[in-house]
């Protein structure tokens, strides 16, 4: 059995930022365990730019953004193991991992940070009828083939789902000489960032068909085509609107699922909406000393926010290891009011001495609406927003002086007012 103060599971942007922040707080004994061959996580295959605008104030590619953190990890001599898969974490913080050189590893940690990221929703979850040819893949898999392996996974392409990876891949495949025929989106709005719709679709003349889905795949061997159809407001295909589209590739960008198998095995309390752990303002789960951050906690649209969140978790874990945890924590569960799908954190220590920034997503598109924060029946803030969209994460700050006035029986509510 090895011993470390802090074990960070996942060496993507979340894991690295968390480890670095813990080091800033004086934690020496840290190890990052990463399943891929390199640190950097999914950023390594995101060779487009647009990363770092918020955090670094400049526009970087995914690998450039990751490289800045990898360099710091190296400089700070934070230990890490790549090509290493964590297969189990116990309540007592014993981490089991495996790799080719060390074999089976057992590590006793004082604190654990879960930073495993997320995975893409596969076809199986969609119940698309039809055959099972090759040429149906998630956008992320296609991205790996093109950007890392150097092979074209398709030529005539239909993309289902207008999540950011789908939009990015529409542009990427076009630049590589493929013909992206269309992006179909089940919802009446895109789940991606506005800037990606403009820069990845509009600039290349790729049509975005809203309220449209793929209802069947055709072809034995390689995909030969798909049937698309319009959907009604209950998202059911409308008979008579079916259309056959010839293509050799169907890329799916239909949602991301936090990879919480380890989290669930520990028995950590989960949020049904985020599919991530329920956490407090330090991103600590309901199991003391086990923290979560990044896409494993909730799916982010910008890596910059992942970094910021991971720094909070890193600080939380460091304080926990150093025994600096606030003695008299009193938790209040936030209310996601009208229009708000979820908040992270879900619970806040009202004895916290610092203001708490709460991130949230809305359930649909709002124009000229207000984001209202109410604490103990009093409106604390009311901010006008020209546009609120499910694809863009919002935040609101609960000031520490307001927290100080609250008791555990009060309500903190975030809602959208039209």
């Amino acid at each position, binding site marked *: 059995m090895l011993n470390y103060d802090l074990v960070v599971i996942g060496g993507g942007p979340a894991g690295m930022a968390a480890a670095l922040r813990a080091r800033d707080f004086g934690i020496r004994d840290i190890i990052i365990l990463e*399943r891929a061959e390199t640190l950097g996580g999914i950023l390594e295959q995101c060779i487009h730019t647009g990363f770092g605008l918020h955090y670094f104030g400049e526009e970087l590619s995914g690998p450039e953004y990751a490289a800045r953190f990898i360099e710091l990890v190296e400089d700070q001599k934070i230990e890490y193991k790549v*090509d290493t*898969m964590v*297969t189990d974490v116990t309540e007592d913080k014993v981490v089991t991992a*495996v*790799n*080719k*050189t*060390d*074999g*089976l590893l057992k590590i006793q940690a004082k604190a654990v940070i879960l930073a495993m990221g997320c*995975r*893409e929703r*596969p*076809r*199986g*979850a969609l*119940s698309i*009828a*039809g*055959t*099972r*040819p*090759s*040429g149906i*893949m*998630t956008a*992320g*898999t296609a991205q*790996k*083939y*093109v950007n890392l*392996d*150097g*092979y*074209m*996974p*398709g*030529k005539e392409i239909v993309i289902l789902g207008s999540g950011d990876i789908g939009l990015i891949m529409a542009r990427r495949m076009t630049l*590589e*000489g493929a013909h992206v025929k269309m992006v179909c989106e089940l919802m009446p709005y895109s789940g991606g960032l506005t800037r990606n719709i403009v820069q990845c679709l509009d600039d290349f003349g790729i049509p975005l068909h809203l309220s449209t889905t793929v*209802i*069947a*795949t*055709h072809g*034995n*061997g*390689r995909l030969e085509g798909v049937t698309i159809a319009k959907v009604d407001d209950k998202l059911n*295909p409308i008979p008579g609107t079916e259309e056959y589209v010839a293509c050799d590739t169907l890329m799916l960008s239909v949602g991301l699922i936090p*990879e919480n*198998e380890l989290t669930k095995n520990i028995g950590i309390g989960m949020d049904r909406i985020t599919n991530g752990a329920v956490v407090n303002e330090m991103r600590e789960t309901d199991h003391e000393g086990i923290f979560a951050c990044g896409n494993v906690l909730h799916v982010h649209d910008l890596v910059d926010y992942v970094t910021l969140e991971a720094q909070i978790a890193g600080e939380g874990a460091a304080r926990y290891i150093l025994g600096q945890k606030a003695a008299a924590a009193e938790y209040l569960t936030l209310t996601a009011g009208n229009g708000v799908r979820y908040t992270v954190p879900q619970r806040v220590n009202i004895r916290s001495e610092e203001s708490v920034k709460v991130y949230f997503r809305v359930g649909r598109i709002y124009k000229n609406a207000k984001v209202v924060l109410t604490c103990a029946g009093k409106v604390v803030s009311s901010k006008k927003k020209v546009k609120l969209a499910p694809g863009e994460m919002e935040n609101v700050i609960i000031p520490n002086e307001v927290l100080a006035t609250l008791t555990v029986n009060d309500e903190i509510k975030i809602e959208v007012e039209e």
Partner: protein
Amino acid sequence: MFDVVIIGAGVVGCMIARELSKYKLKIALLERANDVAMGATKANSGIVHAGFDAKPNTLKARMNIRGNVLMEDVCKQLNVPYRKNGSLVLAFSEEEIETLKELFERGKQNGVEGLSLLDKAELKALEPNISDEAMGALRAETAGIVCPYSLAIAAVENAVTNGVEFKRNFEVTDVAFQDDVFTVSSDNDSVECRFVINAAGCFSDKIAALMGEEDFHIVPRRGEYYILDKSLGSLVDHIIFQCPTKMGKGILVSPTVHGNLLIGPSADDVEDNDDLATTAQGLFDVRSLALKSVPDAVTRFAITSFSGNRAHDLKNDFTIAPSKYNTHFINVEGIESPGLTGSPAIAEYVAEILSSMADLQQNESFVGTREKPFRYHTATDEEKAAAIAQNPLYGRIICRCESITEGEIVDAIHAPAGAMDVDGVKRRTRAGMGRCQGGFCGSKVVEILARELQVEPNMITKYGKDSVLLYERTK
């Protein structure tokens, strides 16, 4: 020159190949696809039936009962996951209660042991997650579950180890007979032999027709299924059937040997053997009918759906007999359910038929057991450590969802009649069978296949033929 050529490497063909490899025979197993188990074998319910469904005195009944008896031992020898979890047929009306009694009687007539009729309370005690609407059930203790393609793969590995030659991508288009010798041909290859065994599944009527047979009429009957996430895998312990209809045994809800929950199949006659498309209607029927038995078996937790075609012959029974046009041509035709259950018995029966025409001598070097492949996720910590020390590739997990290592994938590729495509790796190792359905490991499996088979990654297919995954290199 072969003694025996078997056409079709589904579970029946593979089990026949293994059975006949017990004798001093030169055997070839021909398969049109790029792998074994590519027809009905890869897409069925995976049930080892007790044997109360089949009409008494049919070949279906006989093979079912004998197959059920043989299955446990065969699975043990071949190291194939099998579990005798028992089955329950539910009744939702007084009329169906009567049907249960009929099935009970029929089962007794067929010689099925371990049958009992349960009332509602007994049923609920046994399976608390069953619908409250169920009024009673027929319990069959001898029913079980097996992974059908694992059985076929294990059987072919064992057969090849014992000397059988496996020829893939060999689609039989012609069988000629002259001077006591058959010439079995595809468009670009041919083999000669003294005996032919037609185990071509959905194509068995067409292969039989090459000998002049006109009485076989396979109407492929499509069945659609969902596989639900392992988090629902223990919702029920038994195989849960509904009362049978003329189209089959109805929609079942069953745990799989791998811990998922399986629901299906629908039953629709189709025209084209190769039409394996799932349909909106079929999937809808499966979804809604499964809920009737187990209200919590919701497809929100589906990880995949698929369909398979049963080799349903209009005469509604198996044919296992020498062709009336040439006795050295043995038809194994119309093998639908309970074909998987019956497969060890069918193999035994074919050997018996063959022995009446040929002098079968024991193959003294026959080894009936197949070594258990290393499986990371079921190994103990000690076994893992030892395996990694011996082969570091067992320490590199490729498929995260199912914890499948690179070592297991390499083993599957180099096994006898090993995997040559991504789906072949998937069926042998379960890499890509988990929640993410190959999202992460798919490209790594392509890489490993290309490396081990010494070809470029864009030569690797999903399941042979033109199911290419990658085109040319990027600019």
